[in-house]
């Protein structure tokens, strides 16, 4: 017998858009269930710069997206300040970049309504000392950095507080039962227990990003057509810029450096891939990002990087458009699927992290109308409240908290990021998606565990021991969780293994093999070794 759920709206996909849809529905009093085949932010929502675009990036290519970014970023700075570091940004051209492109920038900004202030090279270097002497043009724009993990957690957390809904991680859609032009049942599988799950909903929303075409096809809809553009980024061990540093040239590799608390993120590559699954950052992409980035910020050549990661941008294929990730539209699209003969299904995809709220609003407008709900959207006016178990994803937050509390008995489990025992306890107890035998990976997603210089070498063992001690783990699967977590961390570390980060991994292997024997212990997830 399958586990059964009934609700008004099933939202598929725990990315920023799905989380935004869940909150928007909750604010309009509409019950829903949010599912994800993995966990929150597992796709592009967790695989990006964390850049809250002023819109400057798109002024030359897509004025409409640029203006949307401007409106949405202004709104989010006001309504969700806890997720945002309003650090500002600069666009800089260096010797060798096209001076005409640079000269046109202020006019393009003006057309999209984006504030833009010209800086002399000296002013630019005063603002961002990491810039080189070769700066030929510079403009300040209201870019900011945003913590996508916290943003998602806060959206889901607020929705859960409003009630009448649920978030279920690791539930994968296997198919839809369609009757009389409507989805009656969504057949799913609990990827952790293997159990069959059936969800009966009046409306189904697919907010599955790069997987939206596949999900739509499961419902027999051929109208969603995507290009998959893989973007790879690297994370430094320390913060490099004061604010966002963009290269003032047509978008290319390694041309955006975004601070994220105590670290910085450099990206991205843009590689068209045929399959959004099983993507990994490569050494070649890392080398390319780094050599391009170093023209703009020379210190990057000598910077220690702790990790590389990637996401897949779901780009909308437009009729006759060539399959080039950089030139395709960064806009979003809402499909009502009525032309495909389904009356209670909608797909929202494309777009940017910066515009997630607007995407959710448009989607819920459609769904609410179909349900006969006339409550207005409130996400453009209602501030996003802060949840207590949700504030641990920002680099530096746990360390600040620990120092302020000065409680010597609250031992630090992760020394790189100063994550204390109490933080892990609060996540296991209260964070959205908290569950029995919660995986290290799920705890790490909701904190900075495993994200510092040691990339999990020490904290994986300490947190696992603590979870056994606290009775959260009560069987041998704790070791399997540790192995899975370490295996997953390694994928991101591998492309940055040289210089100072390499000995760290050597030590990690000494501990993981010599002290924990994990190379001979089975994991829970397939990792290609068995």
């Amino acid at each position, binding site marked *: 017998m399958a586990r059964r759920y009934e609700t008004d709206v099933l939202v598929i996909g725990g990315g920023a858009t799905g989380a935004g849809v869940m909150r928007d529905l909750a604010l309009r009093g509409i019950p829903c269930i949010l599912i994800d085949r993995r966990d929150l932010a597992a796709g592009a929502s967790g695989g990006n710069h964390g850049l809250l675009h002023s819109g400057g990036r798109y002024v030359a290519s897509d004025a409409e997206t640029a203006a949307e970014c401007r409106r949405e970023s202004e709104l989010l700075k006001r309504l969700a300040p806890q997720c945002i570091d309003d650090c500002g940004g600069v666009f800089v051209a260096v010797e060798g970049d096209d001076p005409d492109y640079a000269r046109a920038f202020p006019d393009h900004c003006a057309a999209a309504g984006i504030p833009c202030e010209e800086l002399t090279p000296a002013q630019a270097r005063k603002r961002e000392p990491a810039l080189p002497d070769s700066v030929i043009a510079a403009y300040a724009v209201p870019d900011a950095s945003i913590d996508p993990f916290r943003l998602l957690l806060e959206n889901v957390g607020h929705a859960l507080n409003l009630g009448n809904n649920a978030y279920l991680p690791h539930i994968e859609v296997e198919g839809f039962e369609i009757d009389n032009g409507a989805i009656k049942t969504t057949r799913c599988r609990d990827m952790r227990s293997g159990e069959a799950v059936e969800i009966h909903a009046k409306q189904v929303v697919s907010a599955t990003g790069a997987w939206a075409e596949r999900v739509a096809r499961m419902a027999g809809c051929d109208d969603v057509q995507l290009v998959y553009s893989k973007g790879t980024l690297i994370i430094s061990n320390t913060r490099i810029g004061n604010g966002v540093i963009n290269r003032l040239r047509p978008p290319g590799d390694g041309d955006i450096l975004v601070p994220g608390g105590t670290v910085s993120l450099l990206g991205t590559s843009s590689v068209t891939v045929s399959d959004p699954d099983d993507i990994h950052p490569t050494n070649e992409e890392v080398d390319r990002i780094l050599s391009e980035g170093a023209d703009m910020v020379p210190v990057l050549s000598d910077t220690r990087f702790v990790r590389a990661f990637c996401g897949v941008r779901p780009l909308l294929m437009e009729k006759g458009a060539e399959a080039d990730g950089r030139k395709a539209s960064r806009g979003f699209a809402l499909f009502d699927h009525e032309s495909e003969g389904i009356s209670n299904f909608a797909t929202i995809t494309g777009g940017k992290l910066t515009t997630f709220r607007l995407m959710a609003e448009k989607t819920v407008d459609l769904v609410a109308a179909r349900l006969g709900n006339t409550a207005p959207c409130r996400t453009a006016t209602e501030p996003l409240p802060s949840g207590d178990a949700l504030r641990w994803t920002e680099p530096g937050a746990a360390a600040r908290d620990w120092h302020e509390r000065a409680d010597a008995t609250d031992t630090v489990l992760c020394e790189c990021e100063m994550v204390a025992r109490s933080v892990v306890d609060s996540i296991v107890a209260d964070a959205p998606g908290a569950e029995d035998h919660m995986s290290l990976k799920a705890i790490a997603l909701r904190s900075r565990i495993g994200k510092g210089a040691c990339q999990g070498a020490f904290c994986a063992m300490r947190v696992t021991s603590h979870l056994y001690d606290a009775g959260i783990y009560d069987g041998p699967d704790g070791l399997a969780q540790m192995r899975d977590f370490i295996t997953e961390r390694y994928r991101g570390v591998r492309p940055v293994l*040289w*210089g100072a980060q390499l000995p760290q991994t050597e030590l990690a292997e000494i501990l993981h093999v*010599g002290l924990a024997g994990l190379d*001979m212990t089975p994991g829970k997830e397939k990792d290609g070794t068995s």
Partner: protein
Amino acid sequence: MKRTSRKIETEFAVVGTGIAGFAASLFAHARGLDVTQVGHSGAIAYTTGYLDLLGAREGALLDDPWAGLDALRTLAPGHPFARLANDDIRTALSEFIAALNTGGIGYTPVGARNVKALLPYGVTKPTLSVPETMQPGIEAKEAGAPTLIVDIEGLQGFSAQEFQTNLAAEWPGLRTAKLAFPGLDGRQVFPEVMARSLETRATREAFAELLRPLLGEATHVGLPAILGMRAPDAVRADLEERIGATLFEIPTMPPAVPGIRLREMFEQALPAHGIRLEPQLKVAKVDLGTDGARLTLHGPMEDIEIDAASVLLATGRFLSGGLASDRQHVWETLLDLPVRQPASRDDWYRATYFDPRGHAINRFGVDVDEGFRPLGANGQPASPRLFSAGAIISGQDWVRERSGAGLAIATAYGAVRAAAEVLRQPAPRYSAGALG
């Protein structure tokens, strides 16, 4: 203050203060050589304390390390172990263990088979020799003895519950308890601090008072490795008498006591035997000459020049600084000895962390001849008087093979033997000094 300078002349200079370096100093001293050992702190605090010889091959654990070594000579002739006979390796390990025993840290003798040593997370590890303080745990597990595992409040990365849960199926007689270490209750505690504290009688008394009521039916008690720093066997015996049960230690996360014990013991014992030891200094430069080498070191207040008739490089791998890398290359840091490597960084690491074949980079290192002399660019020894030992040698993966201590000790033995042969020959008359 003015910087001073000092010159040392020696027959055998050892660079590195890990197990390979300490073993080389012991062996060289035993052969009557004049020895000077230098190096910074090294990675010895990362050891479990177990002396592994060969515990795994190609993703499978080994019971019989000696048969494993025989197989290695055929299957992997480039492996450093293939340059030594089993008898030599056995002699090397036995001599090393005898020195540890003399120095006050009891270790079990070299046996015919590996033992299944306990690890903190409830997995066992095949190893050759273990500290006497850890041996009863192996026996208790084999006998299924009623055993109490005790962890300490505020000690990170060690949970009695975790140990018990993961071993419960094989060892049903396990129970767990937790206690607050006397005088340290509540806060984060470190194994090193507890170990030093247990060297005082008052702490042992208080600790035994806390342990005794927890015993119940248990005949054995397992603790994280904290039973003293300088005299662990005496600390254990005293506590056993106080509680009336057999005690054993389980390794902990680094920095861990068993490795610190070894380092402190050597730092005390080697100078006492007349070996010059400069343990906190990093060698800045090695200049090879025809009849030896000159080592340059810069201390905080003085510069040291060591003129050595022979040099042993036991500088370890990346973690200890013997090897280094950038995005394109791996190199040896002191002499820029050739390190054979693939053309691209893509081939350093496998796609999957726990790939049973291990990562290629772990086998990079310096190539050596039969006498453990590193080879130069022309495939010939870089110098007849330069030797190497331990993890810096290419063609092994000591972490996956569980062969770290064995490799360090055996290659040190082989290198010292070869060095002694060279040093016994009369010095060439046409040396630079004689000509000048």
